[in-house]
């Protein structure tokens, strides 16, 4: 496939690895913030290709993983209403809430449907005028504009039976929180390429200016990731801290301004709750007053008090404080067939990546 195969060239990869080896003089820890990067890094064996003194730590960039139990419980409670069709992205189905999951609820006969796009929720609402259709809106900045467009269409078409359970999040405030924490040791960041396609490079400037850490917005093919690592190593060795763009074929400084405008037409910035990271100011959204009627949180349901599995280390894994290998449940009790926490459920979850690729 064009724009993919060329960026998997083995010869160039070897050249890049040699460059990294030559430039790197000391042990460093780099965080790949995004779950899609984590999967690529494992799939192409990049951890084993680069010098051992460069350690890659997985970050909080998996939307399913950071969705708190309280929101999953809310979706489950809504799905139990007889007049509701709950619509969700597939990854969310198997994530355990406090006492159930959407998959279990579906098996109990609730009307829960998996979609690929927010636009599918519009169709389901049009086809089921006697039902309340609730879209479980999770995702980072890459996905938020697609949800905003669906909301704008719903408003325009005066769909009265479509609602959105908003649990969307913004990445830069989570990075800010990680940098403030003394438990997390990171020398540089591999920044998410597709979030940055939307937001551009400006929202990350605090990483360099306030925390003096380098960061590189990076693509997802092996050559992209290796080049990103090389750029980070060079910044660290030269004592620079800048926000650089490796993934120039789709990421521009200003991002996608139209997409950003759509999001802010519908939502205003608000605090949000993250699994493992807690409440983070300005890391999420709430509906603007003029879109209140689409907020699923106005639908009445009783939601159970959220509970977490006491042994699950997903929260610390998301912050890069622990690896899955330091969790007692990993492999023994918790595996992709029987996941205890969301980091094992999601294909982008760090625990699932370790389970699949780390022998």
């Amino acid at each position: 496939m064009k724009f993919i195969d060329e960026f998997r060239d083995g010869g160039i990869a070897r050249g890049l690895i040699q460059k990294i080896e030559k430039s790197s003089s000391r042990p460093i820890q780099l965080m790949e913030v995004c779950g899609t990067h984590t999967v690529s890094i494992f799939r192409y064996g990049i951890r084993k290709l680069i010098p051992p003194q460069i350690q890659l730590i997985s970050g909080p960039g998996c939307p399913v993983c950071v969705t708190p139990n309280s929101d999953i419980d809310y979706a489950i409670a809504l799905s139990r209403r007889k007049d509701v069709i709950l619509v969700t992205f597939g990854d969310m189905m198997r994530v355990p809430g406090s006492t159930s999951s959407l998959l279990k609820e579906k098996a109990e006969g609730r009307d829960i449907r998996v979609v690929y796009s927010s636009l599918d929720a519009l169709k389901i609402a049009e086809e089921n005028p006697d039902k309340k259709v609730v879209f479980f809106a999770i995702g980072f900045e890459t996905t938020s504009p697609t949800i905003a467009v669906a909301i704008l269409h719903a408003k325009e078409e005066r769909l009265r039976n479509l609602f959105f359970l908003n649990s969307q999040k913004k990445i830069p405030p989570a990075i800010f929180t990680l940098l403030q924490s003394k438990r997390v040791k990171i020398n540089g960041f591999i920044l998410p390429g597709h979030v940055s396609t939307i937001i551009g490079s400006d929202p990350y400037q605090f990483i360099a200016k306030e925390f003096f850490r380098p960061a590189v917005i990076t693509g997802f093919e092996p050559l992209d990731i290796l080049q990103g690592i090389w750029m980070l190593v060079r910044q660290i060795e030269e004592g620079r801290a800048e926000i650089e763009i490796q993934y120039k074929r789709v990421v521009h400084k200003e991002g996608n301004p139209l997409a950003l405008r759509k999001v802010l037409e519908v939502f205003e910035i608000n605090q949000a709750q993250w699994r493992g990271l807690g409440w983070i100011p300005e890391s999420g959204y709430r509906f603007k007053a003029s879109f209140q009627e689409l907020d699923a949180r106005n639908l009445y349901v009783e939601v159970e008090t959220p509970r977490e599995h006491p042994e699950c280390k997903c929260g610390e894994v998301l912050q890069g404080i622990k690896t899955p290998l330091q969790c007692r449940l990993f492999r023994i009790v918790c595996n992709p067939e029987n996941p205890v926490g969301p980091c094992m459920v999601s294909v982008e979850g760090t625990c699932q990546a370790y389970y699949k690729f780390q022998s």
Partner: protein
Amino acid sequence: MCLSVPGKIIRIDENMNMAEVDVGGFLRDISLDLCPDVSVGEYVLIHAGFAIQKIDEEEAMETLNFLKKMAEME
């Protein structure tokens, strides 16, 4: 979940602001609501049924040529 793939624009339906794209030999319909200024034959990055950005072929070639040169220098 931020997984996005490149696709080539095959046909544009201007009334609906939709496009048919070729993604590795498979045809799909996507929305152009977030990336309206595209033409047939151009490549876009696709996420959750939407084009979210045009792919800049020149930049892609520049990155590749730079990496090739750098690898040859070894």
